[in-house]
């Protein structure tokens, strides 16, 4: 994994974190190259979400180093200062399981708020960019409604557009379809697949194994705060080396078939 041509856009070394006595991350090493799509899978409580949240400082890593786009977010367990953190976060888009759209703002205002407040974009530019992004996620016609009137799938697509409005270098997806009714999952995955094909660098925590198989460049399997196996989807799904990977996949895939 260390023989890379490009400078990795995300580089994680020996990342560790505890909640009290509970060690949730136990020395994670990952490199993400530009345009790579990494899917992180693993049983619940394995530390996947915490790992993702450490990559934009929503959780504070206690040990290790995280470098993003050449900046040290965490340097040997030391978090970057508040200003640096805010700057790095503009380069790292995040999509949450529970959407977290701003309910007091229209869909359009949700997308323009951060660019207008932070990137010193004019109102006109921010709005035309936002309308383009909303059209891209198939919601151009919903620009002027409030999020409360949208379905879950529509909300999540707005959330993706909102994150993209900051023109991030990397997108983090924290179980983006877990809160959705089954029939709405597809429209969100579709948008993510388009993003991936356009060359967006993405780290995705998900239970959607078919999506991982089709879209991921690398699948990372986590358990008990450690990466137990990582590799191309064909290897992870076809010939997993670890017994724990096999039993996890068996449990998930049999449930999918039953459904």
């Amino acid at each position, binding site marked *: 994994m260390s023989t890379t041509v490009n400078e990795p856009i995300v580089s994680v070394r020996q990342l560790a974190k505890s909640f009290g006595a509970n060690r949730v991350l136990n020395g994670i090493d990952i490199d993400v190259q530009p345009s790579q799509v990494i899917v992180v899978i693993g049983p619940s409580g394995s530390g996947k979400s915490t790992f993702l949240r450490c990559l*934009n400082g929503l959780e504070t890593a206690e040990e290790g180093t995280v470098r993003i786009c050449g900046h040290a977010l965490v340097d040997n367990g030391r978090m970057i200062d508040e200003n640096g953190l805010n700057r790095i976060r503009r380069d790292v888009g995040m999509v949450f399981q529970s959407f977290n759209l701003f*309910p007091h703002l229209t869909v359009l205002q949700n997308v323009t708020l951060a660019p207008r407040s932070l990137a010193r974009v004019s109102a006109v530019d921010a709005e035309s960019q936002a309308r383009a992004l909303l059209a891209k996620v198939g919601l151009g016609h919903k620009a002027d409604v409030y999020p409360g009137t949208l379905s879950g799938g529509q909300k999540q697509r707005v959330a993706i557009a909102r994150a993209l409005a900051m023109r991030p270098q990397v997108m983090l997806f924290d179980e983006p379809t877990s809160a959705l009714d089954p029939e709405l999952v597809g429209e969100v995955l579709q948008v993510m697949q388009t993003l991936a094909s356009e060359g967006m660098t993405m780290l995705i925590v998900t239970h959607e194994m078919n999506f991982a198989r089709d879209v991921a460049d690398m699948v990372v399997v986590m358990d008990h705060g450690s990466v137990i196996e990582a590799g191309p989807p064909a290897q992870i799904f076809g010939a997993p080396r670890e017994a724990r990977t096999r039993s996890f996949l068996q449990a998930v895939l049999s449930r999918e078939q039953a459904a």
Partner: protein
Amino acid sequence: MTLDFSPVWAGWETLATGAATTIEVTACSLVLGCVLGLLVGIGRLAPQRRVIYGLCTAYLTFIRGTPLLVQLFILFFGLPQFGIMLPAFACGVLGLGVYSGAYVSEIVRGSIQSVDRGQMEAARSLGMPYRMAMRKVILPQAFVRMIPPLGNEFIALIKNSALVSLLTINDLMHEGEKIISVSYRSLEVYIAIAFIYLILTSATSLVLRRTEKSLRADGRV
């Protein structure tokens, strides 16, 4: 026994002036109370900032734990002992505003904390600094939730303002008592005063209900 409201009718102008003063005192202390409440409420959000948190908590404990009347008397009758002579109106506004601010601060804190923490995370993950996220994302949502409890507080403030009549301020209560002192018609005048207070409180609650309704329209939360 018969009720004779003629002193009330004869003194309507006096009562109207008193009501105007009551509105004035209440409005000024309401502004003071809201500003103080917002600052103290936000100050009590972060216990790790010990000095600010400690000061805010001390304020809340002292003001909420002692009678408003005692606080007003300290300002008006107590402070002159140190040569601090504030005009009666200023004492009334300061006393009521500081008192109300303590209650408003708990309303502010509770409303902010009731906003889902995912909202702050989403705003921060876009790169917004804490204060900006608070101002543009959290407070507008918290504000809508503050309206019903703030309505209670405003109504309490209007009623509590009757106490400033004891500081020689010519509010509704004070003007009413002047009429009583010459007409001896206590019951009729107090009924009239109560009715005027009722109009003031009902109007306040109506305005707040309208505001909340319009803010919650169109599927906004």
